[in-house]
């Protein structure tokens, strides 16, 4: 699928980890150490974009497909309905490493991208300097 820009090139088959395997790994990890962000080059916890759907993913994908057919079925050809199954399965694969990514309760969301703190601090310093320059008596 292309979104927005460019063609994607095939890559070698990645490591596959199911949600169940992840749960086992995470349970072991939490028993031994606190989970933190994993910057490792190839972390099994992060999982990968695998070819196999877990039964849970399959069930979820099927439920979503049913919801689409229930709401929009009369608009869709049989071929489109078939294709939607593939799209939903693909979307599940996209979600897998996101669900598996280790997060702490307090980790917030980048719902709007913010500039980094050092840039903000620099801008504030600049702004304060400008104010001092414009109004030198204000400091007195």
């Amino acid at each position: 699928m292309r979104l927005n820009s460019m063609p994607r090139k095939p890559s070698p088959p990645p490591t596959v980890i199911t949600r169940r395997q992840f749960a086992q790994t995470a349970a072991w990890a939490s028993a031994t150490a606190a989970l933190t962000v994993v910057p490792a080059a190839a972390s099994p916890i992060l999982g990968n974009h695998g070819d196999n759907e877990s039964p849970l993913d399959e069930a979820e994908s099927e439920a979503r497909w049913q919801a689409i057919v229930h709401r929009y079925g009369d608009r869709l050809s049989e071929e489109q309905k078939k294709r939607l199954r593939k799209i939903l399965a693909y979307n599940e694969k996209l979600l897998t490493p996101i669900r598996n990514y280790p997060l702490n309760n307090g980790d917030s969301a980048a719902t709007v991208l913010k500039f980094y703190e050092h840039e903000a601090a620099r801008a504030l310093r600049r702004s304060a300097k400008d104010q001092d320059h414009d109004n030198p008596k204000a400091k007195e």
Partner: protein
Amino acid sequence: MLSEDILYLPVRQLGERIRQRQLSPVALAESYLQRSQQLGPQLNAYVTITTGLALEQARAAEREISNGHYRGPLHGVPYAAKDLVAVKGYPTTWGARPYAQQAFDYNATVIERLNQAGAVLIGKAAMIELAGGLGYESAKAALTGPCKNPWNPKYWTCGSSAGSGAIVAAALAPWALGSDTRGSIICPSAWCGIAGMRPSFGRVSRHGAMAIAYTMDKLGPMARTADDCGLILSAIAGHDPRDHDSLPSSLASFTYHGAETATGPLRIGRLANVWNRMDPGLEQRLDDALKVLEKTGAKIRDVQVPDGPYEEAAELTILMEAASSFQDLIHSGRCAELDDPLGRINGYASEQFTAPEYLQVQRVRLQLQRQIDKLFEDFDVLTTAGQSTAASPIEAPPDDGSEEPLERRAPDGLSSLCGLPAITVPCGFSKEKLPFGIQFLGRALHDHAVIAAANRFQAHTDWHLQRPPLQGA
């Protein structure tokens, strides 16, 4: 008509000649219009050529400059705008059949800024329908047909700023406005052999521009040189209260004084693990390009991007936000009018994502942003290819993509997810004589750094001076 030698000049030189009254804005606009009318249809490069507006703006510029009122380097210089920005009095089709008759009674902020700079709009550039917002699988997903690459019309320009790429490469205008949610400026610029810049997220207002993904959409320049990109960005950047995600004035504004090259040793990190596969010829050109930079004093080291679901997060963010942006199209069923078979149904699937899933993606995104930001502690810019190959044939089989493993560290997804500035400039040619690009990525808000690195490269190479062998020019 003015000679091709004039029409292929960069914006800086055109502006300088206009300022010195050696070049008439009217003659320049007329020449680009004539060339656009002649070659534009062959390349499927335009949706609309705005002849009346262009001549009116060019005459106004000529009058003002004659009267001593010179506005700056874009005054009297023509450009084209991707057909997703609103231009009062002209259709704004978003490249898609359901919006073929759409018109707005106001100008997008970016158009207003360019009007203030005295620029001359000569047309609305063709694009992939909805800028690929609902997905697409071939170059044919466009209201105006597949956009043809000026270097070889059997090849595609890439999308979604397809027309903008073709227009600049074929010198139908000296620069064009593009938009980039995940690679839509960088890819067509690389494939068309021009300079293209995606500014930091929030620098350029998107008010009046079609939205795909609110937290990822950017507008930016596509031009002949990195220096031109800097000039243009300085005119279009700035805070706009009508764009909720616009950065505050102190951060949004961008001042550019000239062909800047980085001072002191430039620290460049060569991204060693972002592509699964790269054209071997391109690999060689990148090596050559980095040798050029090394000779100028740049310090270059390989750097690995830490693992993480960058591409998944980028793709999910676009899918989820686009389901909201195009909700009316999806609910009304008018998505069935789109040209692309995938675009007709993809929105139904994207609607099924849940709010917790969206938030989960955004929570992971923040971690990934921090992870990538750390890379810049050791480097001024990161570099890799603009794309991993040269242009693909227009007749390539449809790319459904769902069976392919993701290229999860692909630089477009990664850097778009993090709102980072990037620029690509040409660095050589493939065996088929199609352009390759080298891109530089910078830390968020370090737009100067990527321009400076690309400027330095272009000051020592002449790839950007090559011209495509156009038939019928």
